[in-house]
């Protein structure tokens, strides 16, 4: 609604009312109209101020990008795996059904992977009580001989398992590292990030998935994580 134009129309209407009804003008009717008009204008101003305030409030807040994760209909079930952690315990991805999982394929010789690891440690700290878990799949040929010391030195606080070519193939042929999957509470792949990715992209995806089905999450109790480098 364009207020100046409306105001002009009403002004013309007022003048017309005064002019045509001159001598036989119903002052009460005119004044009632003017009072009603003024009330309308005050109501419109209040609405506009409220709208401005609401817009101002939301513009400074952090909004999750809708494109952080795939729509539900496009998500496919993540392949299950059974891999060993540092103590030889078997870890299955299906044990984490009901939780949001960040599944990271990495290696100790991978420079870009090391940029992301501190972020993942922070995500684990911030979100583990909200039904979230990070699983790092190490792709080092040298195995735990190199991965254990690395994890201890870095204080990695999330579960690490030893990957192999078979699991890499099942996840679509993971070749480049890091390759990171975000998996929703139903065990479906919600997003894939190949190469060094912005921290914000992960954060947005995690928050979006955590918000979904939080009330219905039937987090199955998984075996306690035996952490190599936890401090």
């Amino acid at each position, binding site marked *: 609604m364009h207020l100046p134009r409306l105001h002009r129309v009403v002004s013309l209407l007022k003048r017309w009312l005064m002019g045509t009804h001159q001598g036989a003008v119903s002052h009460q009717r005119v004044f009632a109209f003017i009072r009603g008009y003024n009330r309308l204008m005050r109501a419109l101003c209040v609405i506009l101020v409220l709208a401005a305030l609401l817009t101002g409030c939301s513009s400074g807040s952090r909004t999750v990008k809708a494109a952080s994760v795939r729509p539900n209909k496009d998500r496919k079930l993540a392949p299950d795996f059974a891999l060993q952690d540092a103590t030889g315990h078997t870890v299955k991805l299906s044990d984490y059904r009901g939780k949001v999982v960040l599944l990271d394929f990495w290696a100790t*010789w991978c*420079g*870009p*992977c*090391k940029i992301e690891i501190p972020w993942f440690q922070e995500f684990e700290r911030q979100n583990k009580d909200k039904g979230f878990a990070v699983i790092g799949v190490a792709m080092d040929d040298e195995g735990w001989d190199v991965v254990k010391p690395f994890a201890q030195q870095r204080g990695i606080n999330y579960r690490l398992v030893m990957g192999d070519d078979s699991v890499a193939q099942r996840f679509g042929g993971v070749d*480049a*590292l*890091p390759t990171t999957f975000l998996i929703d509470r139903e065990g479906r792949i919600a997003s894939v990030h190949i190469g*060094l990715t912005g921290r914000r992209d992960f954060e947005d995806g995690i928050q979006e998935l955590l918000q979904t089905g939080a009330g219905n999450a039937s987090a199955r109790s998984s075996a306690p994580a035996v952490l190599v480098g936890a401090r």
Partner: protein
Amino acid sequence: MTGKRGAELSAKIAVSLGEGYHVNSNTPHEAYLIPLKLTWTPAPLEVASVIFPKPHDEKYQFSPDQPLSVFTGNFEIVTKFKVPADTTSGPAIIAGKLRYQACNNNMCFPPKTVDVKLPVEIQ
């Protein structure tokens, strides 16, 4: 290649990397990095030396403070062989393996080993 018994000969392996990619040099700055390595089966020729070009230091997005010792683009690795005096003359194949680990600015690829075969005529 042709080599006489008791003589030396050298072979060049030409390596070509795509734009934007690098491999760790044969002497990376950090122990956890996988070096470029060329090894040969010790017969019928003896390996005298493997000579790599001079690497250069580069900083990448994932290593902004610590430069990496790398090779990029096209380069050659030279191997000097010695033909033992008692080697059987005739055609032969020298077999080797080149191991490398490549990355670009934001991702890395698993180490790979490729077979290298050099035909040689021993006189």
